[in-house]
């Protein structure tokens, strides 16, 4: 299942002033899997994703696809790691296709001209996320759920091996949330390492292969999702009991198109 290491972190530490946001985090993750990043509010999930995306300074060692992260220039890193924030700052009246095309910035020449490969990557990303129907619309006029899909399409257009998503299902209805998780599994099966911060443990248990459980900036547990999302770690970090058999849950009916 797991390919060679896509992300290797050793003693990863992030500080803001005297406040330690991430404390000596170490893990190694291969391609072709969905990794759930879990933990209560303030555990350091978003900080870890931003650090991996190159948005925060850190100490310790970080290797991306076998290369020292600090040796990568901004464009190389963008071609390797795509990041979808929980709340996007984008609210401009840009056409949706242009927003997706921003995912190709790291491939553009000095004149910024797109080539055939750019167009193909944009089309593929829009097809996977079912956003082609929105192509001509203005981003600022989209619903929250549609915006999230377009931002995911922008990340997919980068063709990065590592995809980092910060709570992508938050504020999505159950249909879109299930569709999105299904899509993430599909992307992992195509060889991507999908790292996704999630609040809902049942979603994480269903959708992920591996899990990292954080609490107060420390990595409490890491390994197969079924082991991490188990009684003892969950009680220790969240202070709640796992109910073994959920009374009801949701799934996409067999044969139905699962596009988000």
């Amino acid at each position: 299942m797991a390919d060679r290491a896509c992300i290797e972190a050793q003693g990863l530490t992030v500080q803001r002033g005297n406040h330690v946001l991430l404390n000596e985090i170490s893990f190694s993750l291969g391609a072709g899997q969905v990794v759930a990043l879990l933990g209560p509010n303030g555990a350091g999930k978003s900080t870890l994703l931003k650090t991996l995306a190159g948005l925060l300074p850190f100490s310790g060692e970080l290797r991306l696809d076998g290369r020292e992260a600090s040796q990568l220039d901004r464009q190389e890193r963008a071609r390797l790691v795509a990041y979808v924030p929980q709340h996007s700052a984008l609210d401009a009246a840009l056409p949706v296709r242009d927003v997706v095309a921003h995912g190709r910035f790291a491939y553009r020449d000095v004149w910024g001209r797109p080539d055939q490969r750019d167009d193909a990557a944009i089309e593929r990303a829009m097809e996977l996320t079912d956003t082609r129907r929105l192509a001509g619309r203005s981003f600022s006029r989209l619903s929250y759920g549609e915006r999230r899909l377009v931002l995911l399409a922008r990340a997919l257009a980068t063709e990065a091996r590592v995809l980092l998503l910060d709570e992508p299902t938050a504020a999505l209805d159950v249909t879109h949330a299930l569709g999105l998780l299904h899509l993430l599994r599909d992307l992992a099966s195509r060889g991507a390492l999908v790292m996704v911060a999630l609040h809902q443990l049942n979603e994480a248990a269903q959708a992920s292969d591996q899990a990292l459980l954080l609490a107060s900036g420390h990595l409490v547990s890491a390994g197969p999702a079924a082991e991490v999302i188990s009684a003892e770690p969950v009680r220790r970090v969240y202070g709640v009991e796992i109910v073994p058999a959920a009374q009801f849950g949701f799934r996409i009916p067999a044969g139905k198109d699962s596009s988000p």
Partner: protein
Amino acid sequence: MKIALTYVVLLALLIGAVGLALLVGHGSLADPVLRSTLLGLRATRVGAALLAGAALATGGAVVQGVFRDPLVSPSILGTTAGASLGGQLAMLALVSGSPLASVAVSAEMVLPLGCLLGAGLSLTIVLTFCRERTGTLTLILTGFILSSLFLALSSFITSLAQDSWDMSRAVVSFTLGGVGGVSTRQLLAVLPLVGIGIVASWLWSGTLDLLLSGEEEATSLGVEVGRARRWAVTWVAVLAAAAIAVGGNVGFVGLIVPHTLRPLVGVRHRRLIPACALLGGAFLVACDIIARVFPSRSELPLGVITGIIGAPVFLVLLARSQREVSHG
């Protein structure tokens, strides 16, 4: 189609404004003796208004993109106040007969040079503070402090200029804006600056579009945000210096022109910037026509006209955008 039509209308407006500006004004073109002189003088004025308007509007589009805020103008960076102070100091040096003013350049080039040096100085200070991880707030605060400082110094120079009637008249005229006294040489000196500023801004269109996603997302997509911001600030400073060198202090152009055009050509800078250059030029040429034909004892200052037109237009645009926000 809508965008193409908008460009055609903008081009027609520009051509119409330039044509009208050449035809109207004091003195009759029917007089064969005066005709070529009058047309020459008017052409220089038109050229100055065109360049200043195009430069200010383009600078406005760039700075609004960098700050992700359609309500800011190029003056936010402090480089406009710097250029203005530089221009006033140059005039002071020229009138006081300072050897500095006549060592290397002819008298008519002292003013543009002063504007450039003033903008360059404030740009250097801004860039010193605008490092890799500096947020836009620091940039805004630096610009605000610089503007306040340079405006205070400008006021000091204006008070010093009261000793000489000629000097005070020149300083007040420069402060209120106008393209009346621009020479062909000044125009030719400023032309490449405006050209470089507009073309460079246009070439950075793609990066400016990505900055609309905010610093973090733009960075994750491969933009060197600090570098992009520093270059954008540099182009805005070049454009502001060029505009002030030939037009003095003219407000509102950089604020209202991009704001007016976004609903027509969209927010993509590749389309917005050329449209801003066209409408900015046409708008200032039209304002200069009003300045010349308005019945008054002396010519109306250009900055007064742009202010009187710009402020209400801006309020209307603001009300419209507020309405759009509240209606989702």
